[in-house]
Protein backbone atom coordinates (compact mmCIF):
# COMPACT_ATOMS: atom_id res chain seq x y z
CA UNK A 1 0.00 0.00 0.00
CA UNK A 2 1.57 3.32 -1.00
CA UNK A 3 2.38 5.77 1.76
CA UNK A 4 1.09 8.67 -0.31
CA UNK A 5 -1.11 9.24 -3.31
CA UNK A 6 0.59 7.15 -5.98
CA UNK A 7 -0.51 9.46 -8.78
CA UNK A 8 1.85 12.08 -10.06
CA UNK A 9 1.07 15.52 -8.74
CA UNK A 10 2.49 18.82 -9.89
CA UNK A 11 4.28 21.06 -7.42
CA UNK A 12 3.84 24.81 -7.40
CA UNK A 13 5.70 26.02 -4.32
CA UNK A 14 8.49 28.59 -4.09
CA UNK A 15 12.05 27.43 -4.71
CA UNK A 16 14.81 27.98 -2.17
CA UNK A 17 17.63 30.35 -3.08
CA UNK A 18 21.07 29.30 -4.21
CA UNK A 19 22.54 29.77 -0.73
CA UNK A 20 19.91 27.38 0.58
CA UNK A 21 21.04 24.75 -1.93
CA UNK A 22 24.70 25.31 -1.09
CA UNK A 23 23.83 24.93 2.56
CA UNK A 24 22.08 21.64 1.80
CA UNK A 25 25.28 20.30 0.19
CA UNK A 26 27.39 21.41 3.16
CA UNK A 27 24.92 20.05 5.69
CA UNK A 28 24.65 16.72 3.91
CA UNK A 29 28.46 16.46 3.73
CA UNK A 30 28.82 17.25 7.40
CA UNK A 31 26.23 14.70 8.47
CA UNK A 32 27.94 12.10 6.24
CA UNK A 33 31.25 12.87 8.01
CA UNK A 34 29.69 12.63 11.45
CA UNK A 35 28.32 9.17 10.72
CA UNK A 36 31.86 8.00 11.52
CA UNK A 37 32.08 7.07 15.19
CA UNK A 38 35.81 7.75 15.20
CA UNK A 39 35.27 11.28 13.99
CA UNK A 40 32.67 11.85 16.68
CA UNK A 41 35.27 10.77 19.25
CA UNK A 42 37.77 13.26 17.81
CA UNK A 43 35.15 16.00 18.11
CA UNK A 44 34.54 14.99 21.73
CA UNK A 45 38.26 14.99 22.55
CA UNK A 46 38.62 18.43 20.96
CA UNK A 47 35.87 19.87 23.14
CA UNK A 48 37.29 18.22 26.23
CA UNK A 49 40.56 19.99 25.34
CA UNK A 50 38.64 23.24 25.05
CA UNK A 51 37.10 22.71 28.47
CA UNK A 52 40.51 21.99 30.00
CA UNK A 53 41.81 25.22 28.46
CA UNK A 54 38.81 27.10 29.90
CA UNK A 55 39.53 25.55 33.31
CA UNK A 56 43.17 26.62 33.05
CA UNK A 57 42.11 30.19 32.21
CA UNK A 58 39.73 30.14 35.16
CA UNK A 59 42.60 29.00 37.39
CA UNK A 60 44.88 31.77 36.08
CA UNK A 61 42.11 34.32 36.49
CA UNK A 62 41.61 33.35 40.10
CA UNK A 63 45.34 33.78 40.73
CA UNK A 64 45.04 37.40 39.69
CA UNK A 65 42.53 38.17 42.46
CA UNK A 66 44.22 38.80 45.86
CA UNK A 67 41.43 37.46 48.08
CA UNK A 68 40.21 34.50 46.04
CA UNK A 69 40.11 31.00 47.52
CA UNK A 70 42.46 29.82 44.80
CA UNK A 71 45.06 32.49 45.67
CA UNK A 72 44.83 31.69 49.38
CA UNK A 73 45.23 27.99 48.66
CA UNK A 74 48.18 28.48 46.30
CA UNK A 75 49.91 30.90 48.69
CA UNK A 76 49.91 28.19 51.33
CA UNK A 77 52.04 25.90 49.16
CA UNK A 78 55.41 27.68 49.62
CA UNK A 79 56.87 31.14 50.38
CA UNK A 80 58.30 31.41 46.83
CA UNK A 81 54.92 30.85 45.27
CA UNK A 82 53.39 33.32 47.75
CA UNK A 83 55.87 35.94 46.54
CA UNK A 84 55.14 35.13 42.91
CA UNK A 85 51.39 35.34 43.39
CA UNK A 86 51.64 38.65 45.25
CA UNK A 87 53.74 40.00 42.41
CA UNK A 88 51.27 38.60 39.91
CA UNK A 89 48.20 40.19 41.53
CA UNK A 90 49.86 43.56 41.87
CA UNK A 91 51.06 43.24 38.30
CA UNK A 92 47.46 42.80 37.14
CA UNK A 93 46.48 46.08 38.68
CA UNK A 94 49.43 47.86 37.07
CA UNK A 95 49.44 46.14 33.66
CA UNK A 96 46.09 44.46 32.95
CA UNK A 97 46.73 44.43 29.19
CA UNK A 98 49.91 42.45 29.68
CA UNK A 99 48.78 40.15 32.47
CA UNK A 100 45.56 39.12 30.76
CA UNK A 101 46.10 40.04 27.11
CA UNK A 102 49.67 38.82 26.68
CA UNK A 103 49.17 35.71 28.80
CA UNK A 104 46.10 34.67 26.85
CA UNK A 105 47.73 35.54 23.53
CA UNK A 106 50.68 33.27 24.30
CA UNK A 107 48.43 30.53 25.67
CA UNK A 108 46.12 30.63 22.67
CA UNK A 109 49.08 30.52 20.31
CA UNK A 110 50.24 27.26 21.87
CA UNK A 111 46.73 25.89 22.21
CA UNK A 112 45.92 26.84 18.62
CA UNK A 113 49.07 25.37 17.12
CA UNK A 114 49.17 22.22 19.22
CA UNK A 115 45.48 21.39 18.91
CA UNK A 116 45.64 21.75 15.13
CA UNK A 117 46.82 18.13 14.61
CA UNK A 118 43.52 16.89 16.01
CA UNK A 119 41.61 18.80 13.37
CA UNK A 120 44.03 17.60 10.69
CA UNK A 121 43.23 14.04 11.77
CA UNK A 122 39.51 14.83 11.71
CA UNK A 123 39.84 16.31 8.24
CA UNK A 124 41.72 13.21 7.08
CA UNK A 125 38.87 11.05 8.30
CA UNK A 126 36.33 13.31 6.56
CA UNK A 127 38.11 13.23 3.18
CA UNK A 128 36.09 10.37 1.61
CA UNK A 129 32.86 12.22 2.32
CA UNK A 130 34.11 15.33 0.56
CA UNK A 131 34.74 14.42 -3.08
CA UNK A 132 36.20 10.90 -3.11
CA UNK A 133 32.92 9.00 -2.73
CA UNK A 134 31.16 11.23 -5.22
CA UNK A 135 33.87 10.44 -7.76
CA UNK A 136 33.53 6.72 -7.05
CA UNK A 137 29.75 6.69 -7.42
CA UNK A 138 29.54 9.19 -10.27
CA UNK A 139 27.43 11.44 -8.06
CA UNK A 140 29.06 14.48 -9.66
CA UNK A 141 26.78 13.82 -12.63
CA UNK A 142 23.71 14.00 -10.40
CA UNK A 143 24.88 17.23 -8.75
CA UNK A 144 25.62 18.74 -12.15
CA UNK A 145 22.17 17.88 -13.45
CA UNK A 146 20.47 19.71 -10.57
CA UNK A 147 20.05 23.44 -10.03
CA UNK A 148 23.59 23.87 -8.74
CA UNK A 149 26.81 24.56 -10.57
CA UNK A 150 30.21 22.96 -10.06
CA UNK A 151 31.17 26.06 -8.09
CA UNK A 152 28.15 25.61 -5.79
CA UNK A 153 29.07 21.97 -5.28
CA UNK A 154 32.66 22.82 -4.41
CA UNK A 155 31.57 25.64 -2.13
CA UNK A 156 29.26 23.23 -0.32
CA UNK A 157 32.07 20.70 0.07
CA UNK A 158 34.43 23.45 1.21
CA UNK A 159 31.90 24.39 3.88
CA UNK A 160 31.74 20.74 4.93
CA UNK A 161 35.50 20.65 5.50
CA UNK A 162 35.31 24.05 7.18
CA UNK A 163 32.53 22.72 9.40
CA UNK A 164 34.60 19.71 10.46
CA UNK A 165 37.46 22.03 11.42
CA UNK A 166 35.11 24.38 13.23
CA UNK A 167 33.85 21.48 15.31
CA UNK A 168 37.29 20.19 16.12
CA UNK A 169 39.39 23.34 16.27
CA UNK A 170 37.98 26.83 16.06
CA UNK A 171 34.89 25.94 18.08
CA UNK A 172 36.84 24.61 21.08
CA UNK A 173 39.32 27.51 20.78
CA UNK A 174 36.63 30.19 20.83
CA UNK A 175 34.64 28.25 23.40
CA UNK A 176 37.66 28.08 25.70
CA UNK A 177 38.25 31.81 25.30
CA UNK A 178 34.60 32.62 26.05
CA UNK A 179 34.12 30.26 29.00
CA UNK A 180 37.57 31.06 30.43
CA UNK A 181 36.84 34.79 30.44
CA UNK A 182 33.24 34.28 31.54
CA UNK A 183 34.51 32.54 34.66
CA UNK A 184 37.18 35.19 35.25
CA UNK A 185 36.84 37.35 38.37
CA UNK A 186 36.31 40.51 36.36
CA UNK A 187 34.29 41.33 33.21
CA UNK A 188 37.21 43.44 32.00
CA UNK A 189 39.00 40.19 31.16
CA UNK A 190 36.90 40.00 28.02
CA UNK A 191 38.19 43.41 26.98
CA UNK A 192 41.82 42.74 27.87
CA UNK A 193 41.75 39.35 26.06
CA UNK A 194 40.15 40.73 22.90
CA UNK A 195 43.44 40.78 20.97
CA UNK A 196 43.98 37.07 21.73
CA UNK A 197 40.53 36.33 20.30
CA UNK A 198 41.20 38.42 17.21
CA UNK A 199 44.45 36.53 16.66
CA UNK A 200 42.68 33.21 17.16
CA UNK A 201 40.05 34.19 14.59
CA UNK A 202 42.56 35.48 12.04
CA UNK A 203 44.82 32.46 12.35
CA UNK A 204 41.97 29.98 12.76
CA UNK A 205 39.86 31.18 9.84
CA UNK A 206 42.78 31.55 7.44
CA UNK A 207 44.25 28.16 8.38
CA UNK A 208 40.88 26.49 8.12
CA UNK A 209 40.31 27.99 4.70
CA UNK A 210 43.74 26.77 3.54
CA UNK A 211 43.36 23.30 5.03
CA UNK A 212 39.82 22.92 3.69
CA UNK A 213 40.95 23.79 0.18
CA UNK A 214 43.91 21.42 0.44
CA UNK A 215 41.56 18.71 1.72
CA UNK A 216 39.31 19.22 -1.31
CA UNK A 217 42.34 18.80 -3.57
CA UNK A 218 43.48 15.61 -1.83
CA UNK A 219 39.98 14.14 -1.74
CA UNK A 220 39.71 14.67 -5.50
CA UNK A 221 42.95 12.82 -6.23
CA UNK A 222 41.40 9.38 -6.15
CA UNK A 223 38.02 7.71 -6.10
CA UNK A 224 39.19 5.07 -3.61
CA UNK A 225 38.03 5.70 -0.08
CA UNK A 226 41.22 4.45 1.52
CA UNK A 227 43.65 6.19 -0.79
CA UNK A 228 42.81 9.80 -0.07
CA UNK A 229 43.08 9.65 3.76
CA UNK A 230 46.30 7.65 3.33
CA UNK A 231 47.69 10.35 1.06
CA UNK A 232 46.64 13.13 3.45
CA UNK A 233 48.21 11.51 6.51
CA UNK A 234 51.37 10.56 4.59
CA UNK A 235 51.81 14.14 3.42
CA UNK A 236 51.26 15.47 6.92
CA UNK A 237 53.63 13.00 8.64
CA UNK A 238 56.30 13.38 5.96
CA UNK A 239 56.04 17.13 6.44
CA UNK A 240 56.65 16.74 10.15
CA UNK A 241 59.53 14.33 9.58
CA UNK A 242 61.21 16.49 6.99
CA UNK A 243 61.48 19.57 9.21
CA UNK A 244 64.47 18.54 11.39
CA UNK A 245 66.24 17.04 8.38
CA UNK A 246 65.69 20.08 6.16
CA UNK A 247 66.94 22.41 8.87
CA UNK A 248 70.49 21.20 8.25
CA UNK A 249 70.23 20.60 4.49
CA UNK A 250 67.80 22.32 2.14
CA UNK A 251 65.81 24.67 4.34
CA UNK A 252 63.17 25.40 1.70
CA UNK A 253 62.07 21.77 1.95
CA UNK A 254 60.36 22.66 5.22
CA UNK A 255 57.82 24.64 3.22
CA UNK A 256 56.56 21.40 1.67
CA UNK A 257 54.84 20.81 5.00
CA UNK A 258 51.52 22.61 5.36
CA UNK A 259 51.81 22.22 9.13
CA UNK A 260 55.14 24.06 9.18
CA UNK A 261 53.81 26.83 6.95
CA UNK A 262 50.76 27.32 9.13
CA UNK A 263 52.95 27.44 12.22
CA UNK A 264 54.95 30.26 10.64
CA UNK A 265 51.72 32.11 9.95
CA UNK A 266 50.65 31.55 13.57
CA UNK A 267 53.93 33.05 14.79
CA UNK A 268 53.36 36.08 12.60
CA UNK A 269 49.69 36.48 13.57
CA UNK A 270 50.16 36.06 17.32
CA UNK A 271 53.43 38.13 17.31
CA UNK A 272 54.82 35.55 19.68
CA UNK A 273 58.36 36.97 19.74
CA UNK A 274 57.08 40.44 20.61
CA UNK A 275 54.71 39.10 23.26
CA UNK A 276 57.47 37.10 24.92
CA UNK A 277 59.68 40.20 24.91
CA UNK A 278 56.86 42.13 26.62
CA UNK A 279 56.50 39.39 29.22
CA UNK A 280 60.28 39.32 29.71
CA UNK A 281 60.36 43.07 30.27
CA UNK A 282 57.32 43.16 32.54
CA UNK A 283 57.76 40.10 34.74
CA UNK A 284 61.13 39.70 36.44
CA UNK A 285 60.81 35.95 37.04
CA UNK A 286 59.71 35.31 33.47
CA UNK A 287 62.45 37.60 32.28
CA UNK A 288 65.10 35.41 33.85
CA UNK A 289 63.52 32.27 32.39
CA UNK A 290 63.19 33.72 28.92
CA UNK A 291 66.78 34.88 28.85
CA UNK A 292 67.76 31.22 28.92
CA UNK A 293 65.96 30.55 25.63
CA UNK A 294 68.60 29.85 22.91
CA UNK A 295 69.16 32.77 20.52
CA UNK A 296 68.31 30.64 17.50
CA UNK A 297 64.91 29.81 18.99
CA UNK A 298 64.28 33.45 19.86
CA UNK A 299 65.24 34.46 16.33
CA UNK A 300 62.80 31.91 14.92
CA UNK A 301 60.04 33.31 17.14
CA UNK A 302 60.90 36.92 16.34
CA UNK A 303 61.22 36.45 12.58
CA UNK A 304 58.86 33.79 11.25
CA UNK A 305 59.44 32.76 7.63
CA UNK A 306 56.20 34.31 6.47
CA UNK A 307 57.19 34.81 2.82
CA UNK A 308 58.23 31.20 2.35
CA UNK A 309 55.16 29.96 4.18
CA UNK A 310 52.79 32.01 2.05
CA UNK A 311 54.61 30.95 -1.11
CA UNK A 312 54.55 27.28 -0.07
CA UNK A 313 50.84 27.39 0.72
CA UNK A 314 50.10 29.24 -2.51
CA UNK A 315 51.79 26.49 -4.53
CA UNK A 316 49.87 23.84 -2.60
CA UNK A 317 46.57 25.65 -3.14
CA UNK A 318 47.26 26.07 -6.83
CA UNK A 319 47.99 22.36 -7.15
CA UNK A 320 44.81 21.52 -5.24
CA UNK A 321 42.80 23.82 -7.52
CA UNK A 322 44.26 22.17 -10.62
CA UNK A 323 43.42 18.69 -9.30
CA UNK A 324 39.87 19.70 -8.44
CA UNK A 325 39.43 21.39 -11.81
CA UNK A 326 40.65 18.32 -13.65
CA UNK A 327 38.85 15.68 -11.61
CA UNK A 328 35.53 17.20 -10.56
CA UNK A 329 33.78 17.00 -13.90
CA UNK A 330 30.58 15.15 -14.73
CA UNK A 331 31.29 11.96 -16.66
Amino acid at each position, binding site marked *: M*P*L*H*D*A*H*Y*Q*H*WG*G*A*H*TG*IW*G*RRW*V*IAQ*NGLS*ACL*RSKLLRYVVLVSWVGGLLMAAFLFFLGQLLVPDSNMTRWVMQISPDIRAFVRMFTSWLQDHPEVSVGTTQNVLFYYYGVYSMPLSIIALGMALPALIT*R*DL*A*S*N*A*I*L*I*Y*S*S*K*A*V*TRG*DYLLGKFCTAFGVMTLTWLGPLCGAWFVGNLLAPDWTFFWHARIALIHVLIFGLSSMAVLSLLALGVSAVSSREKSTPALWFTWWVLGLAIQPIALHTLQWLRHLSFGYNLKQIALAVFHLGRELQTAQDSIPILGQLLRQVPPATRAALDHPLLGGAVMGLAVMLLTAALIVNKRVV*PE
Partner: protein
Amino acid sequence: MSSEPVIETLGLSKAFGRQRALDNVSLKVFPGSIGLLGPNGAGKSTLMKCLLQLQPITAGSAKLLGREVGREGREIRKRVGYAPEQNCHIPGMAGCEYVTYCAQLSGLPFQAARQRAHEMLDFVGMSQERYRRVDSYSTGMKQRLKLAQAIVHDPEIVFLDEPANGLDPKGQAQILELVQGLWRIHGITVILSSHLLHDVEQVCEQIIIIARGRVLVHDTLENLKARKRGAAEVVLARGHSELQAACRGKNWLCDLLPNGHLRIEHRADTLNPLLTLMHELQLPPLEVIPSPNALEETFVQALEISHAAA
Protein backbone atom coordinates in the same frame (compact mmCIF):
# COMPACT_ATOMS: atom_id res chain seq x y z
CA MET B 1 1.54 21.16 -30.31
CA SER B 2 2.81 24.28 -28.52
CA SER B 3 4.26 27.00 -30.73
CA GLU B 4 7.37 27.34 -28.54
CA PRO B 5 10.08 24.75 -29.08
CA VAL B 6 11.48 23.16 -25.91
CA ILE B 7 14.78 22.40 -27.61
CA GLU B 8 16.36 24.45 -30.34
CA THR B 9 19.86 23.77 -31.62
CA LEU B 10 21.73 25.38 -34.45
CA GLY B 11 24.87 23.79 -35.84
CA LEU B 12 25.53 22.12 -32.50
CA SER B 13 28.83 20.25 -32.51
CA LYS B 14 30.78 18.46 -29.85
CA ALA B 15 34.23 17.01 -30.35
CA PHE B 16 36.33 14.86 -28.07
CA GLY B 17 39.79 15.47 -29.39
CA ARG B 18 39.63 14.63 -33.07
CA GLN B 19 36.47 12.60 -32.77
CA ARG B 20 33.19 14.40 -33.42
CA ALA B 21 30.47 13.12 -31.15
CA LEU B 22 27.94 15.61 -32.48
CA ASP B 23 28.23 17.04 -35.94
CA ASN B 24 26.32 20.16 -36.87
CA VAL B 25 23.05 19.18 -35.20
CA SER B 26 20.20 21.55 -35.93
CA LEU B 27 16.89 20.71 -34.34
CA LYS B 28 13.67 22.32 -33.29
CA VAL B 29 11.79 20.09 -30.88
CA PHE B 30 8.31 20.88 -29.64
CA PRO B 31 6.77 19.59 -26.41
CA GLY B 32 5.74 15.95 -26.42
CA SER B 33 7.29 12.57 -25.94
CA ILE B 34 10.40 12.48 -28.06
CA GLY B 35 12.46 9.40 -28.78
CA LEU B 36 16.16 9.81 -29.34
CA LEU B 37 17.00 6.71 -31.25
CA GLY B 38 20.30 5.43 -32.46
CA PRO B 39 22.86 2.70 -31.99
CA ASN B 40 25.29 2.77 -29.10
CA GLY B 41 27.84 5.55 -29.55
CA ALA B 42 25.61 7.50 -31.93
CA GLY B 43 25.75 10.66 -29.85
CA LYS B 44 22.41 10.49 -28.01
CA SER B 45 23.85 10.81 -24.51
CA THR B 46 26.27 13.50 -25.67
CA LEU B 47 23.38 15.52 -27.10
CA MET B 48 21.55 15.26 -23.78
CA LYS B 49 24.65 16.20 -21.83
CA CYS B 50 25.34 19.19 -24.06
CA LEU B 51 21.78 20.43 -23.58
CA LEU B 52 22.11 20.01 -19.81
CA GLN B 53 25.56 21.67 -19.85
CA LEU B 54 27.19 18.57 -18.49
CA GLN B 55 29.48 18.75 -21.51
CA PRO B 56 30.70 22.01 -23.03
CA ILE B 57 29.60 22.64 -26.60
CA THR B 58 32.40 22.81 -29.17
CA ALA B 59 30.47 24.84 -31.74
CA GLY B 60 26.98 26.06 -32.47
CA SER B 61 24.26 27.09 -30.08
CA ALA B 62 21.44 25.52 -28.16
CA LYS B 63 18.34 26.67 -26.33
CA LEU B 64 16.48 24.64 -23.77
CA LEU B 65 13.03 25.80 -22.65
CA GLY B 66 13.68 29.05 -24.46
CA ARG B 67 16.89 29.83 -22.56
CA GLU B 68 20.39 29.90 -23.92
CA VAL B 69 22.32 26.81 -22.83
CA GLY B 70 25.59 27.84 -21.19
CA ARG B 71 24.29 31.10 -19.76
CA GLU B 72 21.49 30.21 -17.38
CA GLY B 73 22.51 26.79 -16.17
CA ARG B 74 20.92 26.83 -12.74
CA GLU B 75 17.64 28.32 -13.94
CA ILE B 76 17.37 25.83 -16.79
CA ARG B 77 18.17 22.82 -14.63
CA LYS B 78 15.60 23.86 -12.04
CA ARG B 79 12.99 23.09 -14.71
CA VAL B 80 14.67 20.02 -16.16
CA GLY B 81 15.00 16.44 -14.94
CA TYR B 82 17.68 13.98 -15.93
CA ALA B 83 18.09 10.28 -15.37
CA PRO B 84 21.52 9.27 -16.63
CA GLU B 85 22.30 5.89 -18.13
CA GLN B 86 24.92 4.89 -15.61
CA ASN B 87 24.41 4.40 -11.90
CA CYS B 88 25.20 7.57 -10.02
CA HIS B 89 23.68 7.61 -6.58
CA ILE B 90 25.08 9.47 -3.61
CA PRO B 91 26.74 6.89 -1.37
CA GLY B 92 25.57 6.01 2.09
CA MET B 93 22.01 7.24 1.64
CA ALA B 94 18.70 5.42 1.80
CA GLY B 95 16.50 5.69 -1.29
CA CYS B 96 14.10 8.19 0.23
CA GLU B 97 16.96 10.31 1.61
CA TYR B 98 18.56 10.35 -1.81
CA VAL B 99 15.42 11.50 -3.61
CA THR B 100 14.75 14.09 -0.89
CA TYR B 101 18.30 15.39 -1.25
CA CYS B 102 17.94 15.57 -5.04
CA ALA B 103 14.73 17.57 -4.62
CA GLN B 104 16.48 19.95 -2.25
CA LEU B 105 19.31 20.38 -4.76
CA SER B 106 16.66 21.38 -7.27
CA GLY B 107 15.41 24.06 -4.91
CA LEU B 108 12.57 22.44 -2.97
CA PRO B 109 12.38 23.28 0.74
CA PHE B 110 13.02 20.29 3.00
CA GLN B 111 9.41 19.53 3.98
CA ALA B 112 8.17 19.70 0.42
CA ALA B 113 11.20 17.73 -0.77
CA ARG B 114 10.54 14.92 1.68
CA GLN B 115 6.86 14.73 0.82
CA ARG B 116 7.50 14.81 -2.92
CA ALA B 117 10.22 12.18 -2.54
CA HIS B 118 7.77 9.73 -0.98
CA GLU B 119 5.13 10.56 -3.58
CA MET B 120 7.55 9.95 -6.43
CA LEU B 121 8.81 6.72 -4.90
CA ASP B 122 5.21 5.56 -4.72
CA PHE B 123 4.71 6.72 -8.29
CA VAL B 124 7.64 4.62 -9.56
CA GLY B 125 6.44 1.66 -7.55
CA MET B 126 8.96 1.47 -4.73
CA SER B 127 7.66 0.42 -1.36
CA GLN B 128 9.56 -0.33 1.85
CA GLU B 129 12.88 -0.73 0.07
CA ARG B 130 13.06 3.05 -0.04
CA TYR B 131 14.39 2.91 3.52
CA ARG B 132 17.30 0.68 2.49
CA ARG B 133 20.66 2.04 1.42
CA VAL B 134 20.87 2.64 -2.32
CA ASP B 135 24.14 0.68 -2.50
CA SER B 136 22.13 -2.51 -1.85
CA TYR B 137 19.56 -1.94 -4.61
CA SER B 138 19.05 -4.21 -7.61
CA THR B 139 19.35 -2.80 -11.14
CA GLY B 140 15.58 -2.48 -11.41
CA MET B 141 15.32 -0.53 -8.16
CA LYS B 142 18.15 1.76 -9.22
CA GLN B 143 16.36 2.50 -12.50
CA ARG B 144 13.18 3.36 -10.63
CA LEU B 145 15.13 5.52 -8.21
CA LYS B 146 16.77 7.37 -11.09
CA LEU B 147 13.36 8.09 -12.56
CA ALA B 148 12.06 9.28 -9.17
CA GLN B 149 14.97 11.69 -8.65
CA ALA B 150 14.55 13.03 -12.19
CA ILE B 151 10.90 14.01 -11.69
CA VAL B 152 10.82 14.80 -7.97
CA HIS B 153 11.04 18.57 -8.54
CA ASP B 154 8.23 18.51 -11.11
CA PRO B 155 10.27 19.44 -14.19
CA GLU B 156 8.83 20.71 -17.44
CA ILE B 157 11.07 18.41 -19.45
CA VAL B 158 12.77 15.21 -18.42
CA PHE B 159 15.70 13.52 -20.15
CA LEU B 160 15.80 9.76 -19.69
CA ASP B 161 18.89 7.99 -20.93
CA GLU B 162 18.17 4.32 -21.56
CA PRO B 163 15.75 4.06 -18.62
CA ALA B 164 14.84 0.44 -19.30
CA ASN B 165 18.41 -0.85 -19.51
CA GLY B 166 19.14 -3.94 -17.48
CA LEU B 167 15.49 -4.60 -16.60
CA ASP B 168 13.53 -7.80 -17.12
CA PRO B 169 10.65 -7.58 -19.63
CA LYS B 170 8.07 -6.94 -16.91
CA GLY B 171 10.17 -4.19 -15.35
CA GLN B 172 10.79 -2.67 -18.77
CA ALA B 173 7.08 -2.57 -19.51
CA GLN B 174 6.33 -0.93 -16.15
CA ILE B 175 9.00 1.74 -16.56
CA LEU B 176 7.95 2.50 -20.13
CA GLU B 177 4.34 2.77 -19.05
CA LEU B 178 5.31 5.29 -16.37
CA VAL B 179 7.37 7.26 -18.88
CA GLN B 180 4.52 7.23 -21.36
CA GLY B 181 2.18 8.65 -18.74
CA LEU B 182 4.51 11.53 -17.97
CA TRP B 183 3.61 13.25 -21.23
CA ARG B 184 0.23 11.79 -22.04
CA ILE B 185 -1.28 12.31 -18.58
CA HIS B 186 0.89 14.85 -16.79
CA GLY B 187 2.15 17.01 -19.64
CA ILE B 188 5.86 16.65 -18.90
CA THR B 189 7.91 16.62 -22.06
CA VAL B 190 9.94 13.42 -22.23
CA ILE B 191 13.15 12.95 -24.15
CA LEU B 192 13.75 9.23 -24.15
CA SER B 193 17.08 8.01 -25.39
CA SER B 194 17.28 4.39 -26.43
CA HIS B 195 18.99 2.07 -28.84
CA LEU B 196 15.86 -0.10 -28.89
CA LEU B 197 13.34 0.75 -31.58
CA HIS B 198 10.57 -1.05 -29.76
CA ASP B 199 10.92 1.06 -26.59
CA VAL B 200 10.81 4.31 -28.49
CA GLU B 201 7.91 3.20 -30.69
CA GLN B 202 5.92 2.29 -27.60
CA VAL B 203 6.39 5.58 -25.77
CA CYS B 204 7.16 8.39 -28.18
CA GLU B 205 5.20 10.53 -30.58
CA GLN B 206 8.21 12.23 -32.15
CA ILE B 207 11.37 10.47 -33.24
CA ILE B 208 14.89 11.75 -33.74
CA ILE B 209 17.28 9.21 -35.21
CA ILE B 210 20.98 9.87 -34.74
CA ALA B 211 24.00 8.09 -36.14
CA ARG B 212 27.64 9.13 -35.79
CA GLY B 213 26.62 12.46 -34.28
CA ARG B 214 24.30 13.45 -37.14
CA VAL B 215 20.54 13.66 -37.14
CA LEU B 216 19.24 11.34 -39.84
CA VAL B 217 15.59 12.03 -39.34
CA HIS B 218 13.29 14.06 -37.09
CA ASP B 219 9.59 13.55 -37.58
CA THR B 220 6.48 12.29 -35.88
CA LEU B 221 6.08 8.57 -35.44
CA GLU B 222 2.85 8.73 -37.44
CA ASN B 223 4.54 10.34 -40.44
CA LEU B 224 7.48 7.98 -40.34
CA LYS B 225 5.27 4.95 -40.24
CA ALA B 226 3.20 6.28 -43.10
CA ARG B 227 6.25 6.89 -45.26
CA LYS B 228 6.89 3.73 -47.27
CA ARG B 229 9.06 3.43 -50.30
CA GLY B 230 6.88 0.84 -52.10
CA ALA B 231 9.22 -2.09 -51.96
CA ALA B 232 8.98 -5.70 -50.90
CA GLU B 233 11.04 -8.80 -50.50
CA VAL B 234 9.69 -11.85 -52.32
CA VAL B 235 10.58 -15.44 -51.50
CA LEU B 236 10.10 -17.78 -54.43
CA ALA B 237 10.61 -21.51 -54.85
CA ARG B 238 11.35 -21.09 -58.61
CA GLY B 239 11.21 -18.59 -61.45
CA HIS B 240 13.54 -15.93 -60.08
CA SER B 241 14.81 -14.96 -63.53
CA GLU B 242 11.29 -14.79 -64.99
CA LEU B 243 10.15 -12.40 -62.32
CA GLN B 244 13.30 -10.30 -62.65
CA ALA B 245 12.71 -9.98 -66.41
CA ALA B 246 9.06 -9.02 -65.88
CA CYS B 247 10.07 -6.39 -63.33
CA ARG B 248 12.58 -4.92 -65.74
CA GLY B 249 9.78 -4.73 -68.30
CA LYS B 250 7.77 -2.64 -65.87
CA ASN B 251 10.81 -0.49 -65.00
CA TRP B 252 10.84 -1.79 -61.40
CA LEU B 253 14.16 -2.17 -59.70
CA CYS B 254 14.74 -5.81 -58.81
CA ASP B 255 17.75 -7.21 -56.96
CA LEU B 256 18.62 -10.73 -55.97
CA LEU B 257 19.68 -10.62 -52.37
CA PRO B 258 22.40 -12.88 -50.91
CA ASN B 259 19.72 -14.87 -49.04
CA GLY B 260 18.01 -15.77 -52.31
CA HIS B 261 15.13 -13.32 -51.87
CA LEU B 262 14.20 -10.81 -54.51
CA ARG B 263 13.92 -7.21 -53.49
CA ILE B 264 11.50 -5.39 -55.73
CA GLU B 265 10.80 -1.66 -55.70
CA HIS B 266 7.32 -1.46 -57.17
CA ARG B 267 6.76 2.17 -56.02
CA ALA B 268 3.10 1.56 -55.15
CA ASP B 269 1.30 2.13 -51.86
CA THR B 270 0.07 -1.44 -51.77
CA LEU B 271 1.39 -4.85 -52.79
CA ASN B 272 -1.43 -5.39 -55.33
CA PRO B 273 0.53 -4.59 -58.53
CA LEU B 274 3.30 -6.96 -57.50
CA LEU B 275 0.88 -9.74 -56.56
CA THR B 276 -1.00 -9.28 -59.86
CA LEU B 277 2.26 -9.59 -61.79
CA MET B 278 3.19 -12.80 -60.01
CA HIS B 279 -0.32 -14.17 -60.60
CA GLU B 280 0.05 -13.42 -64.33
CA LEU B 281 3.40 -15.23 -64.36
CA GLN B 282 1.93 -18.08 -62.32
CA LEU B 283 4.68 -17.78 -59.75
CA PRO B 284 3.19 -18.42 -56.34
CA PRO B 285 5.33 -16.72 -53.72
CA LEU B 286 6.38 -18.58 -50.59
CA GLU B 287 6.41 -15.29 -48.72
CA VAL B 288 6.08 -11.58 -49.44
CA ILE B 289 7.67 -9.28 -46.91
CA PRO B 290 6.38 -5.72 -47.26
CA SER B 291 8.96 -2.97 -47.19
CA PRO B 292 9.86 -1.56 -43.79
CA ASN B 293 8.46 1.85 -42.99
CA ALA B 294 10.72 4.88 -42.93
CA LEU B 295 11.28 4.55 -39.19
CA GLU B 296 12.60 1.03 -39.43
CA GLU B 297 14.50 1.78 -42.58
CA THR B 298 16.21 4.85 -41.14
CA PHE B 299 17.02 3.01 -37.97
CA VAL B 300 18.59 0.18 -39.96
CA GLN B 301 20.47 2.82 -41.94
CA ALA B 302 21.71 4.32 -38.66
CA LEU B 303 22.91 0.91 -37.54
CA GLU B 304 24.68 0.37 -40.84
CA ILE B 305 26.40 3.76 -40.63
CA SER B 306 27.47 2.96 -37.13
CA HIS B 307 28.79 -0.49 -38.08
CA ALA B 308 30.61 0.92 -41.08
CA ALA B 309 32.32 3.45 -38.85
CA ALA B 310 33.32 0.74 -36.40
